[in-house]
């Protein structure tokens, strides 16, 4: 397969970036999207050019590092999939591909396709935990948890913190990410105790970090690689109502 790639190149956070066009030829259809970029980078090294910077690590869809906007879609058009799980066979119909970084006011571009997502860490630091300390926990089976609650906590907990929900949102809201964490804990008896306080602290921090609020565009749910449900946001809103 042959592709024409328009890739966002930006030297650093201060400089203005632009799309550069590259051609890649003879790509096997079982090559992953990131492996295709690896091959392009190898050819850039051969030509003596600086490689395209992009974030990635696990390449199994679980670490949340990879973060490309491909032909306008964060993580590409394929449903419930992170960038690293895209294969070139998914692009057999599109031989011209535009690749950009996740864009949002709170995610500055560092270089090329890589962005700062430290704001997510700071939101977790604001309250995304249960205040239990090492050594203070009771025997694990002391408190049974209804299986459906445990399963639903898991469904929210599965968020990989990638930021696609922010990148796609017209308001650059981090609501889906924040709500997923709040709900994960709220579904469990040990987490419920701090639910209201946690929700308030995390949402305040989200606003302070410059993320917008949710006005129900629902794009986040559609691009989320983990299929995090919009109902998480409804639940979060009910928790931050004055109590």
């Amino acid at each position, binding site marked *: 397969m042959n592709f024409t790639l328009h890739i966002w190149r930006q030297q650093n956070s201060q400089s203005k970036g632009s799309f550069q066009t590259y051609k890649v030829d003879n790509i096997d259809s079982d090559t992953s999207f*990131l492996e295709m970029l690896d091959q392009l980078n190898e050819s850039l090294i051969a030509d003596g050019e600086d490689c395209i910077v992009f974030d990635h690590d696990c390449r199994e869809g679980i670490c949340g590092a990879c973060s490309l906007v491909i032909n306008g879609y964060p993580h590409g058009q394929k449903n419930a999939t992170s960038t690293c799980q895209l294969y070139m066979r998914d692009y057999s119909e599109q031989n011209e591909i535009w690749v950009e970084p996740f864009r949002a006011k709170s995610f500055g571009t560092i270089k090329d396709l890589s962005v700062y997502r430290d704001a997510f860490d700071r939101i977790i630091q604001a309250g995304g935990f249960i205040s239990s300390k090492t050594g203070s926990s009771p025997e694990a089976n002391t408190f049974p948890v209804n299986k459906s609650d445990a399963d639903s906590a898991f469904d929210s907990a599965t968020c990989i913190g990638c930021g696609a929900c922010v990148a796609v949102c017209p308001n650059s809201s981090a609501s889906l990410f924040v709500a997923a964490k709040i709900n994960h804990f709220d579904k469990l008896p040990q987490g419920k105790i701090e639910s209201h306080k946690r929700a308030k602290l995390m949402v305040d921090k989200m606003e302070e970090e410059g993320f917008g609020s949710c006005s129900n565009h629902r794009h986040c749910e559609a691009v989320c690689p983990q299929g995090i449900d919009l109902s998480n946001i409804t639940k979060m809103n009910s928790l931050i109502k004055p109590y």
Partner: protein
Amino acid sequence: MHNLNSKEPTGSIEGRWDKHQFDLKLIAPQNREKYNIIVVGTGLAGASLCATLGEAGFNVKSFCYNDSPRRAHSIAAQGGINASKNYKNDGDSVWRLFYDTIKGGDFRSRESNVYRLAQLSNNIIDQAVSQGVPFAREYSGYLANRSFGGAQVSRTFYARGQTGQQLLLGSYSAMSKEVASGRVKHYSRSEMLELIIVKDKARGIVVRDLVTGKIDSHTADCVVLCTGGYSNVFYLSTNAKGCNTSAGWRAYKKGAMFANPSFTQIHPTCIPPTGENQSKLTLMSESLRNDGRIWAPKNEKDCSKDPREIKEEDRDYFLERMYPSFANLVPRDIASRAVKSICDNGRGVGTEIDGQKLGVYLDFSTIIDKDGESKVKSSYGNLFDMYESITGENPYKVPMKIYPAPHYTMGGLWVDYNLMTTIDGLFATGESNFSDHGSNRLGASALMQGLADGYFIAPRTVIDYLASVDFETIDSTNPEVLSAVKSAEHRISKLMNAPDPIHSPDYFHKKIGRILWNCCGMSREKDSLERAIEEIKSLELLFWKNIKVTGVDDDFNQTLERAGRVADFIELGQLMCLDALAREESCGAHSRVEYLSESGEAKRDDKNYSHVSAWHYDESGPTIIKEALSFEYIKPSERNYK
């Protein structure tokens, strides 16, 4: 000559850790903020340690190369974590977990360490649950367990196929709480390049800010490495792309001994490679072996057929045939070697690479027929989805194809019972040390070990060290600090300015990977190991002559990052081969073809090799120092899974 003192306590094994803890010194709460601790790596081992030390009131500075601690490679662990809770009432106990781990490690680990690990396993589950880790539960609301990777009891706790993710998010949230409290100061996108030693004690590290390229020193009272394993030395492995050996290797070059470097685990159930440009291999959790049946066509001519058209009588369920009592659940090394030998004998299936088909089937049709697709979906749904998204094939309909891949490294920095290396004040925890798994690790035991180290062991032993030593104040102008910074800068400048730059870091990484996979992978042999050592020596020379790094060094430069890691992998590769050569026996995952029984089982030589091989480096090269192992409680027996 160097001596190794494991500092194991004596007395009855059940009481050793308790007694030892009592003997360890304490630091009163009001004095704790005077102490500074550097933690490098914030995966399970590091994040859990940061959280615990922060809670206790110490000052911690932590570092990771990822853009957030939540992305450490621990996140990818799928199958589960062991603990001897015996919730299933199937005869499990601390003693049995201890026994299984010693036996699984093929009698090449320390009894005292392993017993402590089994004891602490239960506290880890309590801790994780209180942090909100959403483990799988029964309808009763109580925690669920499954049997995993060769265990005859169900002691594995899991969170669907994402146990590592959920445990890491637990440790990460606990650590985040301490970042908020101000006790932990964390630096992401920061890579350790050198260890700083002042007056024979580890006192700091040199770090490169991966965004700006700036090189800085950080000093403290002690340093803990939690930097994970080195399976990426093979290039293709199940590890995340950034996993590296550099932190541990830099410490080795400064005198920390490296133990059992050749003990690496090849995991039997990974998705086979499909081409030359493949960048990594994906693990399919071992839990799949509970219900999936492994087979290959009996006849070579069937190997290109659609597996669904191969008749039952033409299928060879080779693990069930060779190991009737453990069948598909034999330990990893045995399963991996069996799969390899089937493929070497021309009965592999799937894509042909270098003239060989690398794959066998892992088939779920029996269990789907029996329990239905929805039952299978509830246990393995996300793994099946992952398989389908990678291969484009639906495993509910067509059997999966699997092949072994490098996965875990039992070897690592040598540590004593206190998890301290041979450098005073330098500790190593998690996969980066060699401690508990001997020559082979059991499934679901790495998460357990990383968290035992981070939540319960290192927080006690590090404090004991701090309480025992008088520290002189040092800062960034100390000559040792300056010289460590200089040496890191010098290395970078060498990488940037090779005399004849031709080849990329990946070019060299693939080369070292190929040599090791062929000569120091699933089976090893004297001649080929000796050849490999020579080849690696030439590769090292070529590397420094021809390495080509584009871009500049004071910038975000991922090519430079890779080059530095590959340079260390090449050196480590040599030591792995030396170690494999020196160990003239087979044990666990280390399989020397000269020392296998007729049926292909590892033949240990307890008389001559019941020891840990610790390698010490100085200008004249590596020398081997042996730590003898003694078994008071579990009599070494031949591992037999027939």
